[in-house]
C-alpha cells in the first residue's frame, strides 16, 4: 500500500485559496491510489507558480526552465520507460512559452501525462494575460483588454487526435483525482487541463465563476467519438464541460523502436563486438 503521506507535506509559497493546493493534493492522492511509490514517479515542471508543485512533493523531480517541461519529461520517459512521468505546469508555461513543445508532444505521443494548471492569467509575474485569457479581459499589461483570441488547449488537442484529453476543475477534487489517474494509466500522451482560480490576479475567472459553469460530462458522452469530442471541447462559455473529452488508442511513441524496447538506458553498456563490426564497415 502506498499512502499519500509518503509524498510528504511541505510549506508552500502559494496564496491561500489558490487552486494549486487542491491540484497538489489530488495529484498525491492519485499517485497513492495507483500504488505508485515516490521513487517510481518523476514529476517534471517548468517555471511558474504551478511549476513549483514538485518542490512540494516527496518524489523524483526535475524542475527545469520556463516552457520546457515537456521536452525534459519526454527525455526522462524515453530514457527510462519504467518511470511514471508527469509534467506539471501552468497555462503560460505549457501553452505560451512551450507552445511548440505542446504541439510536438501531442503528435509524438510519448507515454506521459501533462497536468496544466489553467488559471487564465500569469500568476508568478503578477497578472499579465496568458494564452488562455479571454479576449477583452483587462490586465495591467493589457489595460485595453487582451487583444488576442484565447487558445483552447483541449480543442487543439482533440483536433490533433491526442491520445487522451481531459478537462477538470480544482473545485471538483474527486473528479480531478479520477482524471489524473486515468491520464496516468493511458498508454500515450495524456492532457489534463485543470481550471483553477488565481485568487490574486484574476478577478474574472474566480472560484465562483468556474463553479457556476463547470458541469461533468455524463455517460452519454462518447469519448471515442471525435466529432462529439470536438463539440464538447469547443464549449467554453456559460457552460464548461469537465471530464474525459476524447480518448483513442494510438500506439505510443517508440512502439517498434528497437532502442526503446530494451529497458532503461542507464542499464546499457557498449557492445564492443558490435562496435568493432561497425568500425570495420568503414574499411
Amino acid at each position: 500500500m502506498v499512502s499519500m503521506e509518503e509524498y510528504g507535506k511541505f510549506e508552500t509559497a502559494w496564496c491561500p485559496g489558490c487552486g494549486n493546493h487542491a491540484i497538489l493534493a489530488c495529484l498525491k492522492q492519485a499517485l497513492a491510489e495507483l500504488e505508485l511509490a515516490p521513487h517510481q514517479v518523476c514529476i517534471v515542471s517548468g517555471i511558474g507558480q504551478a511549476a513549483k508543485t514538485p518542490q512540494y512533493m516527496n518524489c523524483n523531480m526535475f524542475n527545469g526552465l520556463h516552457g520546457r517541461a515537456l521536452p525534459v519529461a519526454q527525455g526522462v520517459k524515453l530514457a527510462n520507460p519504467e518511470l511514471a512521468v508527469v509534467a506539471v505546469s501552468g497555462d503560460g508555461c505549457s501553452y505560451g512559452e512551450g507552445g511548440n513543445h505542446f504541439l510536438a508532444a501531442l503528435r509524438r505521443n510519448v507515454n506521459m501525462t501533462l497536468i496544466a494548471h489553467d488559471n487564465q492569467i500569469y500568476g508568478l509575474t503578477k497578472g499579465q494575460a496568458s494564452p488562455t485569457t479571454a479576449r477583452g479581459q483587462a490586465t495591467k499589461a493589457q489595460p485595453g483588454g487582451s487583444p488576442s483570441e484565447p487558445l483552447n488547449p483541449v480543442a487543439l488537442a482533440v483536433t490533433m487526435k491526442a491520445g487522451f484529453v481531459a478537462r477538470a476543475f480544482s473545485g471538483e477534487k474527486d473528479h480531478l483525482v479520477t482524471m489524473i489517474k486515468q491520464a496516468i494509466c493511458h498508454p500515450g500522451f495524456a492532457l489534463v487541463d485543470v481550471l483553477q482560480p488565481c485568487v490574486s490576479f484574476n478577478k474574472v475567472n474566480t472560484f465562483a465563476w468556474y463553479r457556476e459553469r463547470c458541469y461533468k460530462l455524463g455517460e452519454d458522452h462518447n469519448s471515442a467519438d471525435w466529432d462529439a469530442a470536438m463539440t464538447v471541447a469547443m464549449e467554453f462559455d456559460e457552460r464548461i464541460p469537465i471530464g474525459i473529452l476524447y480518448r483513442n488508442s494510438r500506439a505510443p511513441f517508440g512502439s517498434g523502436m528497437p532502442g526503446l524496447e530494451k529497458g532503461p538506458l542507464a542499464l546499457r553498456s557498449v557492445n564492443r563486438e558490435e562496435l568493432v563490426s561497425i568500425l570495420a564497415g568503414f574499411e
Partner: protein
Amino acid sequence: MTETSINILIGGEAGQGLVTIGQLMAKALIRAGYNILVHQDYMSRIRGGHNTFAIRTGPDPIYAAVEDVDILVALNAETLELHREELTDRAIVVVDEAIDCQGMNALRVPFKELAPKPLFHNTVALGVLGASVCNDVSILEGLLHETFHKKGDEIVQANVEVLRKAYDWVREQEFDFTCMPPPPENPEPAMMINGNEAIAMGALAAGCNFLSFYPMTPSTSVALTLISKGAALGMVAEQAEDEIAAINMALGASYAGARSVVTTSGGGFALMVEGISLAGITETPVVVVLVQRPGPATGLPTRTEQGDLNLALYAGHGEFPRAIFAPGTPEECFYLTYRAFDLAEKYQTPCFVLSDQYLADSYRNVPRFDPDLPEVASSVLEPENPAEYKRYAMTDDGISPRAIPGFSEALVKADSDEHDEAGHIIEDGPTRIGMNSKRIVKACGMWHEVVPPEYYGEEGADVVLLCWGSTLGPCLEAMESMKDHTCGVLHFKQVYPLNEDQFMDFLEGAGHVVAVEGNATAQFARLLGQETGFRVSSFILRFDGRPLTSWYILKGLESII
C-alpha cells in the same frame, strides 16, 4: 607541398552524383595503399549550383587541401570555366566529348557510347578516373560489388561491365599524364572516414545512447551516422521540434540515466544556450557537438569557419565549468568525442566538441580506431543509503554522487532554481554561495585533466604557428614547406580550459608566434591572452568560408616575417 601527390577535383551540379564518384575513388585509392584527404565544397541547394569533391592523394601523408588541380573531372561545362585557372601544367581534364575543351589537355569521353543508359554515366566517369590514376580495376570492381550488391547481381554486373569498358577506352587513348609513385607494399588496413562520422563513432564508443537533434548543416551527418550505425547498439534518437527541445530532451534523458548528445551548428546552438545553463545548475551531463559554419545568423550555410569559439565559451548565463575540445583530424574527432563524454559524466556538466564544415566533410584514411576504450565514468544506480540520498551533496571536489531515479528508493531532485543539497529551492545567501562554489570548484579537477596541445617541429623555431581545431593540417603543411625559416606548429585540441604549464615554453621560446585561425577576430589568440597574459601580435585569418590552406598561410607569412 608534396611533389608526389595529385589533386583530383570532381565538379558538377548537386544531384549529378559527384559525391558517389568521389567516395568510391577515394576508397579505391586507400585500398591501393595511398593516403587521401577530401575537401567538399557545396552550395546551399538541393539540385543545380556548383559543387566540388576534391581528393588529394599520394604515397606520403597528406595534411591539407590544396587549390591546384591535376585531374579535373568536369561533369558539366561550367566546371571547366570555374576551375581552369587552378589547373597545373601537367593537368588533364576529363569531360564529355560533347563539351568544348578550349585547347586543354583533355580526355574527351564518349559517355553515350560507353554507357547503355545515363544512369551509368557515373560509373563511366569513375572508370575513366580510375584508369587515369592507374588504379587497379579490380579494386573499383570490388567496391561496385559492395555498393550495389543489395540491388542484385544484374545491377552489379551492368556496372562492372561499364567500368571495364571505361578502363579499356582510356588505355586506347593517347594522353600525357604521369601516374603517382607506387604506394607502399602491404599497407596497414585503413578506414575511410570523415570528421562527422568519426565524432559519431567516438560517441558510440563512449556509450552514448540518446540523441536529440534538429537538423542543421554541417552537423546533420553526425546525427544521421549515430542513427544508422547506432541502431545496432540500442541508440535512442529523436528529431526534436526545435533546438530548445533537443537540448532539454537530452537533459531529461541524461537525468534519467541516458548518455546524451545533441548535434548542431552555431545558429542552432544559439537556441540551445538556455539549456546549457540548465545543465550547468542541475549538474546534468550532456555533450554538445557544434559543427561550425560561417555566421552571424544564417551566414554561409554550407561553408566553413571557426567563428563560434566565443559562443561555446560563454554560452549560458551564470557561472559553471565546461570543457571544449577542438579536434584537428578524424582520429582526434573520435578520441576527443569519447573524452568529452568521459568529462561530462565525471564532472556532471556540459562539454563541447567544436568542429567545422571543412573537417566534417573531409574524408581521410586513418588507422583503425581503438574500440576498447575504458568505460566512461558513470553514475550510481543504488546509493548505499537511499533514504539519506542528496543529489547535490557537498564534497571537496564538487562532484556529488549522481544517482539515477527509479533504481532504488533514493529520490533524485534536480532543480533549475538555486537549491540545497537535497535539491530543494532556497533563497538564502550562504547556501547559494556554497552551491555556486561547489559547481565552480569542479573546474579545478577539470584543469588537471586538460588534454595538452601538441607541438610539431623544431623547438625555439623562428616562427610558431598557433592553431586549433581543423587548421592543424594546413599549418603542418605550411611548416614543411617553409625554406628560409625554422618553423613549429602548436596545435590546441582542447581550447578550454587552458593549462599554461603545458605550453608557455613553446610560445616564449619562439621568434614569431603567428595565430592561424578560420575567423576574423582571432578568437583563440584572444582567449589565450586572457587566460595567460601572452599577447599574440601576428595573425593569419581566413573568413571567406573556405578552409585554410598552406598556400594561404605561406602567402600570409610573407608580410609577417
